[in-house]
Each structure stands twice: as C-alpha cells, then as structure tokens.
C-alpha cells in the first residue's frame, strides 16, 4: 500500500518547527499545540485506514534514493510502529499544553525544539531505511539537549551534557555497525539487511555487529550498568522534557533492540538463536536492573528521581520480554513500551503540576496533598497504580506478559521470570512509599511567601484546573482502556511479531527438543546411562 501519509507525519511538525521559530513568542505555544494536534490527526487517519493483523509494512513511501550506497528515503509502518507513533503523537500535544505556564522564557525556541523533536521521534518509527533510522535516532538528541540544557533545573547544563555524551558515545558504535551492515548487504533497507544478516553473516561478524548495535540501544533504553545519565537528565529536564524523555525517547532504545539488534544480532536463519549466552547475559542484566533500580528508587528523596529510577526498573521488564523471543513476550514488550510511556509520562506530568505550585520535588517537604488537591491526588494514585501493575489498568497486562514471556521462554527460563517478579513487589514498595509520603499523611507544603508562614489549608495554590485535567484525562482513559481491553492492540501485532519470529520457528524444526523447566530430572538419567 503506497501512501504519502508518513511524509505528512514528518513534514507537518518539521515545517511547523520552522514556522514556529519565526512567529511571535505569544503565539508560538498555540502554534505548537495546533501543529502537534495536526500531527495527531494524521496519525489517527493512518490508524483508521490501517489494515490490522497484516505483517507487512503499510503506508509505504519511497522517496529519493541514493543507489550508489543503497540508501533511500523510504518510510512505512507496521502495527508495532503504529502504536508507538500513536503514543508519540498523543504525548506531544499534552506536553506542549503542560508547558503553557511553566515555560515563559524564550518560549519560541522551546516550542520549535519540541516540534522538531516530534518530527525526529516519528522519523525513527516510520523509517524503513537503516541510515534514515539512524539519522532520526541521532536527530532526537539535539532538541532534547537544548530542552534540558536551556529550560531545565539548576544543574541543567551538566545534565544535558551528560545526556548528550552518553547517548552519543553509545550510538557512534551503532552508526559504525549500521554502515558496516549497509556496505556488506549493499543496501540500507532494514528488511533486506535483516535477511542478509540472518543468512550471510559469519558468527564473528554477527557478534561485532550485535555489540555495536547494543552499545547505542542499551544506553538509550537504558540497561542496568549504563543508566546513570537517566536520573540526572530526568531530574533536571523541564516537565515536558521528562515526559517525552521517559515516554518516547527511551522507547527508541527498546524499539531499536526489537527492530534491529535482536533480529540482526541474535537470530540466525540456520540455528535460531545465535548467541544464547549473550541473550542470557543481557537477560541477567535486565533482572539485576529491575531489582537494583527498584531498591535505589525506594531511597530517593526527589520525586522525579524516584520516577526516573522506576523507569530503569520498568524497562528491564520491557527488554526481558523481547529477549524471551516468544510471541506473548514480544507483544507484551511492545505493549510495555506504550504503557510505560503513558503511565510514566502521566506521572511526570502530575509531578510537574506539583512542582509548578510548590517549586519543590523533595519528598520530605511535601505531605498530605490529597487534602488540598483531591483531583490531583486521584490522578497521582491512578497513575501510580498503573505503574505498580494493578490488574485492570494497563501496566499489569504488559508486565504480566513480559514476565510470562521470560518465564516460559526456551532461552531464558523460570528463574528469570521469578526474579523479575520480585521487581513487582519492589515496584509497589517504592511507588506506595511515594504515594504515602506525598499524597497521604498530615498536610504539609513548603512555605511559599514570607507573609504566608503557616501555609495551611485555604491559602496557597489550589487543586488542578480545567487545562490540567484536560491534559491528564486522555492519559487516564488510555490507562484504563488498555487495562480492560488490550486484546485488540495485542492482536494487531500478531502478524508483525510472527514475521519477526519466522526464522526462529523455521529453525526450530531442525533443532532437537526444546528445553523444559524440568530438565534437571532428565539430566539425572543421562549421565547414569552414559557412565561406563
């Protein structure tokens, strides 16, 4: 199916950014909202005309090509990308709207960067060409660098620099890997590269390509030992920056793993899984990250840092699910990307609303906000519960499926699932700790003005108003809807996931019986029979 819709998807925000940079500052925020809503409309139009259940890329657009090196400006979308595109176009207008009051300084540039960021993020999801993918992947860095570095908190420059250098250092290797693959395959078309890599790469080549791809994506996700840029960037970024960072930018890493690193580096046409040990090592890193980051989140005194560490913990589940390489694991993982974007994005929005009022994020300085702000408290608790993975809300579905994926995976196994599930207990631990401190308990808010020493009940800022409810409500609806009726979303991905799994399934017929959890029992038999 040919279509120019994906071009519109990129062109509207990109052109909008340019136009917005020229508009007067007062108008820029409405312009940004308008442009991001227009982008949303294009994405919704695509979703409406999307053929669900199909495995192939849809809305293909083939622009100019560079036949010398096999690269081309080719766009397209499948069900996996569609949901992430929808997540992106949903979160961006909300972030823009959330910035209306908090961003007063140099607003024009700010909104221009936001729109450019939107274009870049969407580009990653709709690129069918590896080089194009990489260009967009890197392009997201620049707007985010400025959003953190200019409009962030007190340590914004250090945070922005660290963010940039960490992710850039990682993705340099990814670029090298991508070029290597492209030159060897003679094309940068992702689909052809995957086929080439699964069939024609030698084990050594694949190993290095895998490492190169992992370097960029693991930092972006971020996986356990390379996550330290994230808490700082999150804490220092303005609200909208944190929302987009947690909501979408981290998903670029998991998306890259899913679309490139795993199919190219870990799946081999002949034998199925190429490096089972590497798979397990990354799986262990995920599980360690889940537990480690959860415990670190628990002892945080800054709300944003707590949520940031919770992201590290949650994305461990997400990556674990796609490493499981079974359908429910991968589908759960993709759903996890969407769900994490919704609930963590929402969490940052709510925290931002608290910050707008009290100019603090210290847990010790806030307490009992439910009394002053019952509506905000409702949303805060709702999104916390979503993050905890309460059944009936979205987080549960994806968390359960990813753990189940690991638990039943031939390549990971029961223990991966069991240890990851410990993270579910710890998730409730740190989240409820935060809820108990900030929302419940006796009312305590920081003193804002000299003349307002007591800062009790009726004085000071009030509950969230219409604009803020309007920002949170779409997310709340999505959180409930994806918790109650996620099966259409999951089912729509069947075709895309199955096609990704195809080499695994066809390889399996030639390999011996799969490992089961009770392998130890059978092991006891074999050595005995082999003994002389």
């Amino acid at each position: 199916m040919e279509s120019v819709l994906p071009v519109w998807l990129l062109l509207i925000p990109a052109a909008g950014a340019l136009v917005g940079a020229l508009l007067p500052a007062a108008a820029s925020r409405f312009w940004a909202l308008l442009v991001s809503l227009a982008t949303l409309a294009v994405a919704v139009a695509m979703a409406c005309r999307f053929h669900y259940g199909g495995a192939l890329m849809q809305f293909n657009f083939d622009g100019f090509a560079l036949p010398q090196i096999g690269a081309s400006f080719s766009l397209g979308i499948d069900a996996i990308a569609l949901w992430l595109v929808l997540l992106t176009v949903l979160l961006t207008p909300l972030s823009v709207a959330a910035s209306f009051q908090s961003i007063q300084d140099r607003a024009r540039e700010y909104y221009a960067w936001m729109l450019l960021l939107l274009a870049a993020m969407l580009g990653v999801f709709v690129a069918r060409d590896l080089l194009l993918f990489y260009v967009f992947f890197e392009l997201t860095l620049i707007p985010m660098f400025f959003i953190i570095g200019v409009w962030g908190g007190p340590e914004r420059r250090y945070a922005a620099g660290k963010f940039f250098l960490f992710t850039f250092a990682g993705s340099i290797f990814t670029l090298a890997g991508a070029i290597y693959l492209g030159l060897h395959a003679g094309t940068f078309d992702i689909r052809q590269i995957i086929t080439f890599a699964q069939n024609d790469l030698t084990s050594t080549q694949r190993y290095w390509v895998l490492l190169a791809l992992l370097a960029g994506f693991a930092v972006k996700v971020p996986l356990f030992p390379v996550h330290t840029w994230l808490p700082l960037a999150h804490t220092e970024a303005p609200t909208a920056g944190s929302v987009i960072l947690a909501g979408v930018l981290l998903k670029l890493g998991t998306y890259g793993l899913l679309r490139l690193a795993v199919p190219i580096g870990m799946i081999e046409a002949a034998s199925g899984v190429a490096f089972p040990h590497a798979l397990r090592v990354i799986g262990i890193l995920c599980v360690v990250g889940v537990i480690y980051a959860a415990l670190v989140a628990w002892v945080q005194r800054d709300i944003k840092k707590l949520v940031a560490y919770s992201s590290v913990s949650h994305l461990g589940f997400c990556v674990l699910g796609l490493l499981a390489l079974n359908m429910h694991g991968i589908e759960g993982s993709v759903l996890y990307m969407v769900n994490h974007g919704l609930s963590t994005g929402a969490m940052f929005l709510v925290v931002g609303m608290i910050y707008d009022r009290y100019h603090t994020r210290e847990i010790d300085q806030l307490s009992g906000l439910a009394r002053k702000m019952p509506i905000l408290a409702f949303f805060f608790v709702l999104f916390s519960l979503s993050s905890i993975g309460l059944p009936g809300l979205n987080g549960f579905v994806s968390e359960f499926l990813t753990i189940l994926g690991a638990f039943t995976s031939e390549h990971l196994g029961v223990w991966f699932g069991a240890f990851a599930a410990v993270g579910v207990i710890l998730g409730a631990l740190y989240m409820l700790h935060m809820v108990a401190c900030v929302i419940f308990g006796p009312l305590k808010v920081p003193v804002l003005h000299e003349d307002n020493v007591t800062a009790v009940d009726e004085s000071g800022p009030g509950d969230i108003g219409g604009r803020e409810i309007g920002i949170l409500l779409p997310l709340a609806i999505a959180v409930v809807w994806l918790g109650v009726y996620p099966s259409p979303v999951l089912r729509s991905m069947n075709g895309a996931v199955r096609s990704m799994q195809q080499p695994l399934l066809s390889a399996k017929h030639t390999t011996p019986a799969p490992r089961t959890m009770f392998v130890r029992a059978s092991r006891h038999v074999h050595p005995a029979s082999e003994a002389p």
Partner: protein
Amino acid sequence: MDALFAVKYSYLIPLLPLAGAAIAGLFGARILRGRSHWPIWLGVGASAVLCLSLLVHMISLWRTGQSQLWATKDFYTWIEAGQFKATAGFFFDPLSAVMLAVVTGVGFLIIVFSAGYMKGEAGYYRFFAYMGLFIFTMTTLVMANNFLLLYLGWEGVGLCSYLLIGYYYQRPAAREAAKKAFLVNRIGDFGFGLGVMLIWKVFHTVSYFGGDGGGVLEMALNPTAQQAAAMRYIPFLLMLGAFGKSAQFPLYVWLPDAMEGPTPVSALIHAATMVTAGVYMIARCSALFVGNQAAMLTVAAVGAFTALLGATIALRQFDLKRVLAYSTISQLGYMFTAVGVLAPVAGMFHLVTHAFFKALLFLCCGVVMHAMAGELDMRKMSGVKRVLPWTNLFILVGCLALSGFPFVSGFFSKDEIIAAALRQSPILGGILLLTAFLTAYYTFRLYFRVFQGPLVIPQPPPAQEHAGHDPAHQHRKHSHESLILMLPLALLAEGAILAGFLNWPKSGLGDFLAASPSIAVATAGAPAAEPGSEPLFTPIMGMSALISLAGIALAYWLHLADRARSDRLAAALGPLTRVLDAKYWVDEIYQMFVVEPLRQLGEVFFLIDQLVLDGLVALVGLVPQLGGFAMKLSTQRGYLQGYAAVMLLGMAVILLMIFVT
C-alpha cells in the same frame, strides 16, 4: 443453568456496584454529599438480589436433581498474546453462588449500617465509592472463570482494602497500615502470580473448566508427566497468595494494623469477605491441591498454627478491634485447616457462619466506639450494656457464636472442622480444641469487661477528634442506637444464630456444595465421609461444648467476678505475659531482618550508582570533556542556537561523507 436470569445477566452483579461507585465518586463531593450512599445502596442491593436469586434458583435446580450444576460464560477476550489467552468470563456453581450470596448479602447489610455510622464524615462519598468498588472486585474474584481474572479480583480487593484502611489518610498510622497491607499482600501475590504462570506453562490455559475437559482443573485430575511434575510446586505458589490475602502465618501481620480503617470496613473486608478469598481460592482449586500430600499438610498445619497463634495474641489485647482482628486470623486458620484436611465443605460452612457473626461483632464494636467517643481500650470502659441495651443483646449473640456455644452457628461449623481435623491427625485436632478454649475465653473476656460490670464510660478528650470524626457528631444527645444501625445488626444476629442450621443433616449445605465440581474433587479424596452426612451429636460435639463453656467460665471468673484477679494472674505469669504483649515480636523481626536490610541495600546501591558507575565513566575520561563542554555552555549562554546550527551542520557533513563514499 445458562437460562437462569442471574446467569444471563450476571455481568450486572459486579457492574451495578461499580456504576454506583462511579456515580458516588464523580458526583459525591459536590452534588450528592450526604446522599452519596444511595448509588451504592441501590447498586449493591440490586446485585444482592441477583445473587440471592441465583442461589435460590440453583438450589431448586439441585432439588430437582439436575446433574450438571455449573455453567461458564465468556464475555470477551481480555488478554490475547501469542498462545496466551485470558477471557473476561464468569463461572457459576454452588461454591460461587454461596460465596456471592455472602459477599453481597452481608455486604449490603454492612453498607446500610455504614450510612448511619459514617454520617458526617469528611470523605463520606469517598467511603461509599470505595465500598462499591470493593463489591465489584470481590464479586469478580468469586465469579471469575479463569485464574487471571481471579487475579484481577484478587489484587482489586487488595486495592480497596488499601484505600479503605487509608481512609483517614491524614493519620500516619492509617497510611502506614494501608501501605503495609498492600505490600504484604503483594508478597503473597508474587507467589500466586508465579503459580498462574506455571499453570499456563504446563496446561496452556488459565481457565478453570472448559466444559470439554480443556480446563486446568479438569486436566489436573489426569495430568501428563510434565503437568504432574509442575503440580508439585503449583499448590505451594498459590498457597502463598492465599496466606497473604487471608492473613495466615507468616503473612498475617497486616491484618491487625488494618483496623485503622473505619469499623464497617473491618467488618466487611477484614472479617467477612475479602480475607476469606484465600479459603475460597484453595477450595476452588482443590483439583490442584488434593493430589499433593505435602501441600495439603502444609495448608492444614499453617492453618492450625495460625489459629493457635492468633488466639494466644488475642488473649492479651485490650483494643476491642484488635481482639477481633486476631480472632479473625485465628478463625481463618480454622478454615485453612479444613481445606487442608480435605473438608472444604466444613471450611466453607465456617466461612459463612463466621461472616455473619464476625461482621456482627465488628459492627457492635463500632457502635460501642461511637458511644465511647472513639475509645476502644477495654480497660477504660465497663458495664456498657446499660447505655447500649440492644447492642448488648446483639454482641452477646456474636460472642456466643464465636466461642462455639452450643446450638449457635459457630458451634456447628467449628465442630465440623475439628472433627475433620481429628480424623486426619490428633495433633491438628488437639491444637484446634485448645484454640477453641482460648477463643471462648478471649471472646467473653471482651464481653464481660466491656458490657457487664459497673458502668464506666470514658470521658471524651476535649479538643481531640478521634478517627477524623466530626466533633459535632460525637455529642451526647445523639442516640447511639438508631434504627439504621440496629436493623442490620438484628439481621446479622439472626444470621449468626440460624446459619448453623444451614448444614443440618437434612437441609444439606454440604450436599449442595458438593455438587460443585471443585468441591466434589476434594470430598471424593477425603478419608471419611464429610461431616455433613454424619450423625449430628458426636462425642466431639459434646467435648467442644464443654470446652466452650469452660472458656466462658474462666472469662467470668477472671474478668467479671473479680477483675483484679486477671491482673494478678498476668503478673504471676510474667515472662509469658510479656511475650504475648509483644505479639511474639513478629513485627520487630520483620522490621529488623527484612525491611531494614532492604533499605540499607537500597542506600548502598544508590551509593554505588553515584560513585562506582559514574566514577567509571569519569575514569574513562568523559568528565573532563564534559566539564569543558558544560563550561563553554555556561560562559557563552545565548549562543545555543549557534551550537545547534553547528551540530546540524556536523550531522549533515557526516551524512554527506557517508553518501559520497
């Protein structure tokens, strides 16, 4: 079965209370205010009518000798990913019908009571919204036809429990208790969740009964080798969930603290319904449990041990609600012993009778608490029967039922459990008999101290409002025994007396329940016939009647005849008293060996995060560049656009180089 009205429209059973909750939640604060109980009354009331009609129709079908007394009904596919599939669907059989009737029936009475009890509270609408939500999740839990939907209800009731314990969220004690309840339950749910995953791994479905033999509980009767191997572990994992939800050792610690919630909550959630979910679940999954001797023994032993543990701690509690909380833990222990010794009918029977009398006891305590200006310490009150004559009557019924006084409901149900336990093992039976004695003693200790003797009423502390009550609500002229409070109590008291005759040999709750495919599996494997079909007056019954009377007599001797005597006895038993007063230091042990080490670990990890991991990065040499980079930015503020342009230019150059080569 499918043609029954209540089955056809069964989605209304959970959805009506949910709709009520939504209305109360959305419009309660501004519009409904003091009328916020109406949507919940109507929703839960209609739901209770449906449940009772389901029960009545099912009984009449059973009377006519219908062979298949169960139905399963799928509404839509909830989660479907790869081969994993879980539906939103309900399952109906005698077991779920009885549970539903208890949940919505007792629930409705308690909600009616609440409208009187909670009058004038600050978050009136919030309370009723949560209560409606609770009935929604609890009925979902009971009616689910697969493990995953059960899990939804399971965690959902935990959420409602959390919200309601934390109802007075401004009190630090309430908020900590709420958090503790959720977290301890999460530990149990961790096991339960893994159990569900293991079930799916070997059975490839999470449905209980497929109708065509394709359900987990059907396949479990004839397992393959792989399934049989997994079934060595599955019951233990599921059990962990049950221990958390039903407050069994070692996960019982949250329930006493849960008394921070309003009293109707303690009655509904923490006595009558939610905490029995674990018993229900094990009874439901009998097919997975019965083949596993070790698991059954563990359930029975943990149950008996918890029964004794709870009863001993209750001996030295002075807070009315805490006595009842430990008593609930202890009585749940009885139910666990019952399902553990293959007598799920006795367990369910006790569940039903306990729902009536424990809800009654809690609500009576609520009335006392109102009349005593929020005071719950039984040392500070006495002779309350003169102020609260009706309540005195009702609580006496509840106490008699709990202590197993002959011919009141608790007597029958408890004896069936003791008899079944004795058939299995004299040790288990002995523990339960001892516990029965302690139960009778602590129950009447409460009654004699609070309701009998000379009249002592605590003075209300002048400015301090207890439990967030509106102070105006506390004043003396207000009648403490209004009709809206007494009517539900009267009905519950009636139930507490009569429920014991439900399982009278000829009327046959036991035989009816045995028509449930879940229960049938367990009763088929039981060593002897179910007690329901035995002659009523066994020697055990006589013995336990004597034990109950002895406990009551001891309570009379120590706490009514001469109250100083009990203090002297406590002093004489010094160390023992201290151990009981400290509740065996279980909370302290958890704090010291679980919570604190974890927190320390978190701090250490955070330190590692900041020093080691970041330090490594610094060693690699990033930081010098980083410093320079940041410095440039800070000194040349305002030139950021220039940097952006340069960066874009750089990107373009890189790309061009790539394209050209």
